[in-house]
Each structure stands twice: as C-alpha cells, then as structure tokens.
C-alpha cells in the first residue's frame, strides 16, 4: 500500500489547525499594530491640539502681534521637537512661523491635514511627513500647528516589520510542529498498515507490535491483534475440517481403487470386465481430481501464502507451460502466440502454474480449430499482468462474474466435459496472491487478465 501524506487525515487535521492558528496569530498581531498606531497618533494629535489651544488663547489675549512673538520664539526650536507653525493673513501671506511657504494649493477644508516637508540634510533631500491642524483666526488669519511625524512613521514601519517577522516565525514553527506530528502519526499508521498487510499475506500467527504507551495506536494494535487471534483460530479450525473431510472422502475412494486394481490383476479376466474396471478407475480418478480442485480452492481461500511463497518469474513459468502445451495446441490446430518478459511475483509456483494450465486448458477446450490464442506476461507499473486471450466463443458479459463460482458452467458447453471448477480455482489462486482477475471481451473471444503485485 502506498502512503500519500497529503491524503492522510492526520495531515488534513494538522493543516486545518495550522491554518486556524496562523490566521489567529495574524489577526491578533494586526490588532496590536492597529491599536498601537491609533493610540500613538491620538497622543500626537492631542499634543498639537493642546498647543493650538494655547496659541489661540495667546491670540485672543495679545492679538496678532503677541502670537507672532510667541511663534518667533518657538520657531527656533523646530528641528528639536519637530513642531511646525504657520501664521498667515487671509491671502495666505506668511506672517510668522517656521514654514517657508504654504504647503497647499488653496485652503484645505479638512481640519486635520498631512503634508510633506522637504529638508536638506547632508546634501540629500529628505522628506519629512507632517501632521497638522489648521485653525481660522479672526479677520481671515490662518494658524497651522503641526508635528513632524517621521519618527512616528519610522516606528510604525519597524513595528510592522517586527510583527510580520513574528507572524512568519510563529507560523513556521507551527508548521514544523505540525509536520513532525503528521510524520509521526503517518509513520505509525504506515507501520500498522504494513504489518497488517504482511500478516494477512503470510503468517497469521504474527501480531502487531505495541509501544507499551497504551496510546490510541496501542489500542488499535490490541484490537487488530484480537481480530487476528480469531482469524488464526478460524483458519486452524477450517484447515482441520478440510483435512478430515479430505481424509474421509479420499479413504473410501482409495479403498475402491485398490480393490479395482486388484481385480484387474486377475489373469482370467474377460476383456469386457477389464474394460469395465478400467472405466471405473478412470471415473474415480476424475472424482479425485474434482475433489482435489475443490480442496485446493478451499485451502487457497482459507490459507495464506507465507509458507511456500517464493519469487516466481511468471513470464518464464508461462513460457515453459506454453511449451509443454505446444504439441496439444498444434494437434488441435490452434495458434498459440506467446509474448512474455521476465516478471517476478511473490507466490506459490505450483499454484501459479495451475492457474496458467487451467486457463490454457480452458482455451484448448473451447476454442474451435483454426483459432488463435495469445498468452502475454508483462510488467505494468507496480503490477505483473498475465493475459490469456482467444478468439473463441467468449463468455457473455452477464455470465462473466457467474462463471467464477464453483460448479457453474454455461448451458451451451454441456457437451464439453468439465468440472466447472477450473475458473473458480483460477479466481481463488488470484485472490490468494492478492491479485485481481477480470474476464473481458476479446471481440471476438475471451480475454482473461490477472494482475499481481510485482515482487
């Protein structure tokens, strides 16, 4: 089984948590930023407002001349506190203040304004953002009081940078934690799944390992192990049942055949009696084969491969068997095309050979003279595909599933001898090897595809 980390539920869960976490952290820090910014700005604004109030009072008390005096005094301090002043008449002619010119075209309507001052510092033009309030005095005089906010804006920029870094680091950390968590959960799930696969493919007496931490995985392993106990017990019981059934059915067959053989050794036997005994022996042989096939189907479905699993080159096996059957196909005037490549599967050589033989014999039985058979073995991705195709009568689509069941034979084939077990055994062998079997239309004819995991 292939493990895809981004399909795993642990990964999806971790990703969802990560997303919620990242968004939460981002919102929180953004709020911190906005609050800080608003707070600092309103503080700066209240300083301007307080100063403006003082200056307006001065104007009310001592008139324009008094205000000019105060402004001239204060203007000297620009550059240290960053305060900006401007007093003009209604025509915007400068009367006092440290601004050299009116920074706007016309008169802004808003109470609060923002503009830039350009200053020469170290032979460079530096832009100073200013925030200010404009207050209309009597007779159209205009008072502007503002503050250089470049320090404040630099602080905001630094704060923003710091917060973005913090968000990045925190989310990165969260992602890392999530990744490690997903890896760990994934590894344990994978280990559990792989153990299950190997146990089911092989030794039913093996059990899942437990870490001893009694966590969810240990509990899962415990449950699976209980299930395996049951399976193993059932498998043992089933095996014992098959064994005694086989014994009970074969023992009488054996006795009959021994008795018939002894009679056959009688020298004074008439030809008719001899022939009679011979055909009885043949009948017993057929019965014994049917029984053997049934048992093999049952064992294949009940058992596991482990004990006799080996690496089998299915391509070579198919080629050898095709060679074995070559005279037979020739005698039946059939053309057998063999196209195989070395392709290894983990399995039981005898059973795989039985599968190939059953499919070959089926084709030999049902494809009329002059027909073409094609046997192919090739690797397709992680699988090995064995294909037996013919241009014979085929199997109607509706019957295809049905013919894999034991003792099912098509009505039209009643003239051909057969037990109706050949394809059932093929299906059981494929199941035992954890493969897939499909019967298809070769138009015309039958196409049987068996796919096994590649070894």
């Amino acid at each position: 089984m292939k493990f895809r980390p981004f399909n795993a539920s642990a990964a999806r869960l971790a990703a969802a948590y990560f997303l919620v976490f990242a968004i939460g952290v981002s919102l929180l820090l953004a709020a911190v930023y906005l609050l800080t910014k608003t707070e600092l700005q309103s503080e700066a604004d209240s300083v301007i407002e307080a100063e403006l109030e003082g200056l307006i009072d001065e104007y009310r008390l001592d008139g324009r001349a008094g205000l000019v005096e105060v402004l001239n005094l204060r203007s000297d301090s620009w550059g240290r506190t960053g305060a900006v002043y401007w007093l003009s008449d209604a025509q915007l002619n400068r009367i006092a203040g440290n601004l050299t010119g009116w920074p706007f075209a016309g008169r802004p309507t808003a109470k609060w304004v923002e503009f830039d001052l350009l200053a020469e510092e170290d032979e460079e033009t530096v832009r100073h953002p200013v925030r200010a309030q404009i207050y209309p005095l009597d007779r159209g005089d205009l008072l502007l009081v503002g503050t250089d906010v470049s320090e404040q804006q630099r602080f905001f920029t630094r704060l923003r940078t710091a917060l973005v870094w913090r968000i990045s680091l925190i989310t990165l950390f969260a992602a890392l934690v999530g990744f490690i968590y997903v890896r760990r959960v994934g590894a344990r799930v994978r280990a559990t799944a792989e153990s299950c696969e190997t146990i089911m493919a092989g030794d039913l007496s093996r059990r899942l390992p437990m870490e001893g931490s009694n966590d969810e995985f240990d509990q899962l392993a415990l449950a699976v192990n209980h299930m395996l106990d049951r399976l193993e017990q059932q498998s043992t019981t089933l095996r014992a049942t098959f064994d005694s059934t086989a014994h009970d059915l074969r023992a009488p067959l054996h006795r009959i055949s021994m008795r018939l053989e002894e009679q056959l050794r009688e020298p004074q036997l008439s030809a008719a009696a001899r022939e009679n005994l011979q055909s009885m022996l043949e009948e017993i042989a057929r019965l014994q084969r049917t029984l053997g096939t049934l048992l093999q189907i049952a064992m294949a479905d009940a058992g596991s491969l482990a004990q006799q699993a080996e690496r089998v080159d299915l391509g070579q096996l198919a080629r050898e068997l095709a060679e074995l059957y070559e005279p037979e196909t020739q005698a039946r005037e059939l053309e057998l095309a063999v196209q195989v490549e070395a392709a290894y599967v983990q399995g039981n050589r005898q059973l795989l050979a039985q599968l190939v033989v059953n499919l070959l014999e089926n084709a030999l039985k049902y494809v009329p003279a002059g027909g073409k058979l094609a046997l192919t073995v090739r690797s397709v991705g992680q699988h090995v595909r064995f294909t037996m195709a013919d241009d014979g009568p085929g199997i109607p689509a509706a019957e295809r599933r049905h013919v894999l069941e034991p003792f099912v034979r098509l009505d039209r084939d009643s003239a051909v001898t057969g037990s109706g077990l050949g394809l059932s055994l093929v299906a059981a062998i494929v199941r035992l090897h954890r493969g897939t079997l499909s019967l298809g239309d070769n138009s015309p004819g039958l196409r049987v595809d068996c796919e096994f995991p590649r070894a």
Partner: protein
Amino acid sequence: MHLLVIEDDREAAQYLQKALRESGHSVEHAADGREGLFRATEGRYDLIIADRMLPHLDGLSIVSIMRQKGNATPVLILSALGTVDDRVRGLRAGGDDYLTKPFAITELLARIEALARRRATGDEMTRLKTADLELDLLTRRVSRGGRELDLTTKEFQLLEFLMRRAGQVVTRTMLLEGVWDLHFDPQTNLIDVHMSRLRQAIDRGFDKPLIQTVRGSGYRLGEQE
C-alpha cells in the same frame, strides 16, 4: 525389497501389502503412528511407506523424529490431502516422495523403485551413458553411436531424467514432477506427445529403440528386455 507400510486403514493396508508382495517385495505393517515409529526406528527397511494421517502420531512427525535420530531410510508419504501446502509440508518434514490417495499401484511401484535406487546413482556424474546413447552434462551434447543428436532444451532435460533412471519404469506423473516441476495433474496426455518427439530424436534411424513404453505405467529407457 523390505518395506514397512504404516497405514491405519486396515482394508487399504491389506490390498497394498498384497500388491507389494505380488511385485516381489517383503512387507511389514504398522497400524498406527506409535507402532510405526517404533518399527521404523528399530527395524531395518529399504523403504518406508507412511500414511500422512495416523492415530497417535501422524506420518510427518514420524519422518521428522526419524530424521532427527539420524535415520535416513527413504520415506514415501501417502496423503489423502493432496494440496500444494500439504505436499510441501511432507517434503519439508523429511519425506522423500509424496503420493496423493488414491493412486495407481503402478505409480507407487515406480516410485518405490526410483527411491530405492536413488542413492545408488551419484548426482555428481557429468556423463550419462545408456547402451550406445551418451549425454554430456557439461557440454550439453547428446550422441548415439557416435552420431551427434540435436535436442531442444526440454528434450535434453527429459532425456537426462530418463538416463538417470535408466532401466527403471518412469511414470508420466514422475516426468511432470521431475522435468516440468509440476506437482499436479494436467488433464491431457501432454507427456506422451513430448515422449514421442524425444523418441523421434533418439530412436529414428537406429535399429534398437531405447525408449520403451510400459503399458499402464509409463516409460523405461534401455534396450528391450
């Protein structure tokens, strides 16, 4: 040959003993596993025929115990199970051959003969010779009367199998098992066609045929008796 038959089915054992005696063997019989093991380890036999399922101690256990004690007498296991697994278990336990019930007496006789003679012929031979037929395992050449014969790979393997058992009866099942490694019974007479091809290759143009058909059993390599 002196044989021990361990078989709990009294009727089957009786017929089996009779058939074996008729073919010139002397036979002793044990009716259960414990007695079978006792006789197998105490007595001296050329070959032991043991049923797979026996009361008290089954056939596989008998073989394992015998082998553990260093007893190398060939054992032929008779089984009513006959599945692929069962065969493997039988051979793994130390059995030398395995036959599914019911079987033809001729099959059993051929296998007894093959097992008994197996140790006489060494496996390390590089040249096999039967009458004027010679097979070189190293150069993979076959010649008869000095004339080189052209064989396919499978024909070569088939001939090698027969030459190693020259003079003995070899059944079709033995050929399927030994040459094709197939331990089940295909339903068609495939072996006969391959044998007739081999016969064409080695007997055509020679006066004395070397491949003899033994009626009701199989084939035998060697000049006509």
